[in-house]
């Protein structure tokens, strides 16, 4: 029996190829394709009066220039609203090329196709667009004020409005012994994967079919959307996703304007066409996230137990709403975290602004929700003079209350029911890991050295692995190798490794004999995509179920050949044999041969399956009724609901009293994603997530000016932290299995990022002694807060005042 792969810290099988430069990303394909470039709006809001291409026509090597006027039928219509929701008041989506108006800097106005990218950019530069500049709407305040509207025909900028309520929150708050109100802001950020977007299309005139390569998180979604736009049967569209250099959410959005224009042009020109996004385009023409304002009102008892919670959210969705309201819905629901809120009311307004669209970025609304809830927990603790961890403790859902129904509808349209988890234990573990109890002494030692340190804590619950479904196809070849396909796509997470681990165990084969294909509609046309930490939950479960079907068939076919009872057989090391008698058996490859009755032999192995090769039961057909030829199986996992992972982060930070520099001294993570398929990969996911959490807390923001120009649209000024900015991370795992899937797993991809802003704000606030209500925070921002605090414009934390009083009593002198 070979060692079990599930749960083992197996090295990623992808890495040798990717790290030695043998990956094939979108831009590595189609060397002979024409290059596409898009002329983009330099204005945040404008009417397009005229597009004059005359000068561009002189560029040698120009193939074509297209504007909206060249588009007909579905291509001339707005792009789809992917996720309709009844709360959407007026759902606007962009056209593939501007149809009279542009609503953000970077909106595509014209498409240039040329022999290569250089020439295409030369030509694009010569296209003169005449704009009538209209009033920009930048930021939540301007969107609410609605002095100007983003979209003609609307009287304000409200794209969607939703209220969810469990109990009577406002009455509960009014009747509570204690009340508080907080305004909490999170600024915009973005995924910024190392590889931007990209599309390469080839039209096959003879077959009347399209092959499309896209750097996307959903092959099947792009396929359906492009087929609809081009008026093609989906059977004539193949979407293949090559290696993808990161996604983090932005590539689940589809179809992008470029994603329909490139195949449209390839078909029209009868020639391959490719577009590779550059970095500036990614900043101004892909998607952002995170920008939200939250007003929290809480009522609580003397122990800090929530009695009522009333949250109003203003969400900046940018110029259009193609991805619906997923982000504010996730914030609304996941804000509750591991806590019982008493009565709960949440209301959001999703607002149009003349900025880049908002679609989910790793965490997808949760970082904002956790920020709102955890800042509230800290504020309650401070109001009551209680330990911050204790206040969280009294509000936690207990393990014996699982499954726990929060009474809301989640982002998948299914009930928000937590399936499993041990939240009190998670909290205890993170306190131990960071040294919560000993911190007061540590703080005093630092203070004696003239140093300022603070500690923070934040808990979260993350709904992962939503449906509707994902599929797996497992096939054993006559060479004994196992080929696995699943439809969702991989952007570097290590899916190929974990899916091979799962199938190797289920089938009793070596991992090295398992080949995995993702994101190729030729191999698995039914799929949804990679988002919401669903790869392991959905495709992991699907390939396990498919492998079980294959195993069952392998045992049946082998039992027939070996004249044994299937119940007496087992599979190990790629061989089916009688249990306890390793010699009495056959290779899986031979079983695969036998599973496909043949008329014609084409090699030595296949002779065994031909019609005169062995005695047959003449009373039964060669392929039994209800069976199919071949040793393969397909199955789908479609869960009842999302499964809910959870965790807690804690951090110690130091703030320089003079320069306001913020340094993370240590960062601890307790993480429960159910059963771990591969602890090495899970920890890698956590490391990357924490890095993006630190980024969102201390570095990354979108600096829009009042005209809607993004001032930091480059990696020089949009500060993705380097390895030198990321602290060492200590991780402890809990493994509470999910009852909702055959593997007991929960998603792990996004968790690391979720409490970043909350936990770091908590620690900075603790170090400084005044509240931090807006993130991210830079040293310059912290310096500004100190100034306002010194001027009496910000109240001190009550615990900081109490500590000062205590020190004054002990030393007999006031502490200054």
């Amino acid at each position: 029996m070979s060692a079990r792969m599930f749960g083992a810290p197996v090295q990623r099988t992808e890495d040798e190829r990717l790290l030695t430069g043998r990956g094939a990303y979108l831009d590595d394909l189609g060397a002979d394709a024409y290059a596409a470039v898009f002329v983009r709006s330099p204005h945040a809001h404008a009417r397009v009066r005229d597009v004059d291409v005359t000068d561009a026509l002189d560029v040698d090597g120009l193939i074509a220039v297209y504007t909206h006027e060249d588009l007909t039928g579905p291509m001339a219509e707005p792009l789809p609203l992917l996720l309709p929701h009844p709360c959407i008041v007026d759902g606007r989506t962009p056209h593939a090329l501007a149809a009279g108006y542009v609503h953000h800097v970077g909106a595509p106005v014209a498409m240039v196709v040329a022999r290569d990218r250089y020439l295409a950019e030369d030509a694009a530069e010569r296209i003169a667009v005449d704009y009538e500049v209209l009033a920009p709407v930048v930021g939540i305040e301007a969107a609410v004020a609605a002095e100007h509207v983003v979209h003609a025909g609307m009287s304000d900028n409200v794209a969607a409005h939703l209220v969810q309520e469990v109990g009577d929150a406002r009455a509960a708050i009014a009747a509570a012994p204690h009340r508080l109100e907080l305004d909490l802001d999170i600024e915009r950020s973005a995924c910024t994967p190392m590889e931007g977007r990209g599309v390469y299309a080839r039209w096959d005139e003879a077959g009347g079919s399209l092959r499309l390569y896209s750097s996307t998180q959903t092959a099947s979604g792009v396929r359906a959307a492009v087929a609809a736009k081009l008026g093609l049967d989906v059977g004539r569209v193949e979407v293949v996703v090559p290696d993808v250099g990161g996604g983090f959410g932005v590539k689940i959005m589809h179809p992008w304007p470029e994603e329909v224009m490139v195949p449209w042009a390839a078909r029209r020109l009868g020639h391959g066409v490719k577009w590779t996004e550059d970095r500036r385009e990614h900043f101004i023409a892909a998607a952002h996230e995170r920008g939200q304002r939250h007003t929290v009102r809480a009522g609580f008892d003397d122990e800090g137990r929530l009695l009522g919670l009333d949250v109003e959210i203003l969400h900046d969705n940018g110029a259009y709403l193609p991805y619906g309201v997923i982000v504010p819905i996730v914030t609304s629901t996941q804000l509750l975290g591991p806590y019982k809120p008493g009565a709960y009311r949440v209301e959001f307004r999703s607002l149009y602004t003349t900025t880049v669209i908002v679609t989910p970025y790793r965490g997808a609304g949760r970082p904002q929700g956790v920020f709102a809830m955890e800042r509230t927990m800290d504020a309650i603790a401070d109001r009551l003079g209680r330990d911050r961890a204790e206040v969280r403790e009294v509000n936690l859902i207990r393990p014996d209350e699982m499954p726990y129904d929060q009474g809301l509808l989640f982002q998948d349209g299914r009930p928000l029911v937590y399936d499993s988890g041990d939240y009190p234990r998670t909290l205890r573990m993170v306190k131990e890991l960071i040294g919560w109890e000993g911190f007061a002494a540590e703080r005093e030692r630092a203070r004696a050295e003239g140093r300022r340190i603070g500690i923070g804590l934040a808990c979260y619950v993350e709904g992962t692995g939503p449906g509707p479904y994902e599929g797996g196809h497992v096939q054993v070849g006559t060479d004994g190798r196992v080929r696995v396909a699943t439809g969702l796509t991989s952007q570097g997470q290590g899916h190929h490794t974990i899916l091979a681990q799962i199938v190797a165990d289920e089938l009793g084969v070596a991992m090295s004999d398992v080949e995995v294909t993702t994101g190729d509609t030729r191999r698995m046309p039914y799929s949804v995509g990679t988002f919401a930490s669903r790869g392991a939950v959905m495709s992991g479960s699907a390939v396990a179920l498919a492998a079980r079907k294959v195993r069952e068939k392998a045992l049946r076919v082998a039992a027939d050949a070996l004249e044994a009872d299937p119940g007496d057989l087992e599979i190990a090391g790629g061989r089916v044999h009688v249990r306890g008698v390793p010699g009495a058996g056959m290779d899986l490859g031979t079983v695969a041969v036998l599973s496909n009755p043949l008329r014609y032999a084409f090699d030595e192995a296949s002779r065994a399956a031909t019609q005169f090769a062995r005695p047959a039961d003449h009373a039964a057909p060669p392929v039994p009724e209800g069976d199919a030829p071949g040793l393969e199986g397909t199955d789908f996992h479609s869960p009842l609901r999302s499964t809910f992972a959870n965790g807690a982060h804690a951090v110690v930070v130091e703030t320089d009293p003079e320069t306001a520099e913020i340094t993370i001294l240590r960062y601890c993570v307790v993480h429960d994603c159910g059963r771990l398929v591969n602890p090495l990969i899970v920890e890698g996911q956590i490391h990357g997530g924490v890095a993006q959490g630190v980024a969102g807390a201390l570095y990354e923001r979108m600096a829009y000016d009042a005209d809607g120009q993004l001032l930091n649209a480059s990696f020089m000024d949009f500060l993705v932290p380097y390895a030198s900015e990321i602290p060492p991370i200590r991780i402890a795992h809990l493994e509470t299995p999910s009852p909702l899937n055959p593997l007991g797993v929960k998603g792990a991809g996004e968790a690391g990022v979720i409490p970043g802003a909350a936990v770091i704000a908590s620690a900075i606030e603790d170090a400084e002694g005044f509240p931090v209500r807006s993130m991210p925070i830079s040293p310059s921002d912290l310096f500004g807060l100190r100034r306002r605090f010194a001027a009496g414009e910000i109240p001190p934390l009550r615990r900081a005042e109490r500590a000062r009083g205590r020190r004054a009593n002990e030393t007999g002198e006031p502490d200054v």
Partner: protein
Amino acid sequence: MKPPPFHYHAPTTLADALTVLGETGPHGKILAGGQSLIPLLNMRLAAPAHLIDINRLAELDRVDVDDGGVRVGALARHARVEADRSAAEAIPLLRQGLRLVAHPVIRNRGTTVGSLVHADPSAEMPAVLALLGGSLDLVSASGRRTVAAADLYVGPLESCLRADELAVCARFPRPAPGTGTAFVEIARRRGDYAVCGVAALVTLDDDLRVAAARAAYLSMAPVPHVLDLIEAVAGRPPDTADFAAAGRLARGRLDPEDDIHATAEYRAHLAEVLTARALREAAEAAVGALGASRPDPERAT
């Protein structure tokens, strides 16, 4: 992000390079390390009709150290200057500054002279040249001249080089005996352009009292800005000199601007704090330098 068309020249002698530069005039641009120029081309923020690649002019790839100081040729990469032990011994500030220039991969390619003529007010090496009172040798088909750092910088990304001139060598003079230097800066991420940076120089006299105290500032003015701060600390021994007062003095003479990374007020505050830190560190280095060159009778007890 592809450059507009340009003619590419790759001269193999300095004379050829100067001829091409003379012919192309304002339409020509010198390519050395390319760490600033190539991004500008790719973003189409610059569109010179001619690129003159000087990477084949091996005669410019040199670092020379003598009694006068350190001479850095136009093709010497930052990394080479940083690694040059005799240069670092002659002028420790060179290595102190170079360590803060971006990241190692950029220092492997980018040239020190290229950085000097790029005239970015946030760059370290122009501040080093300005603080030391160095100069730049410029040659053209019509002649040669040397321009002092104080006259070199006209504005952000703007120097007094004529279109036909090639900077062939930077001259960093040795500071006076008894001098210590320091370079401190605060950047948002390691290797980024500084939010505020201070290069400081302190010279002690034979009685170990402060005889000179100057600082050069990055990201605080349109050009590298040198302040003489001696009045705050003149004649004091380093351990009682009021470097904080020097910081306040500096702050009063600087008028930085806001940008997306920092407010002007924060920059001014940092200038005050970092000035004091840098001067103190420079004074300690000066004491150390003197201690190394002669025994200190008071400390020997």
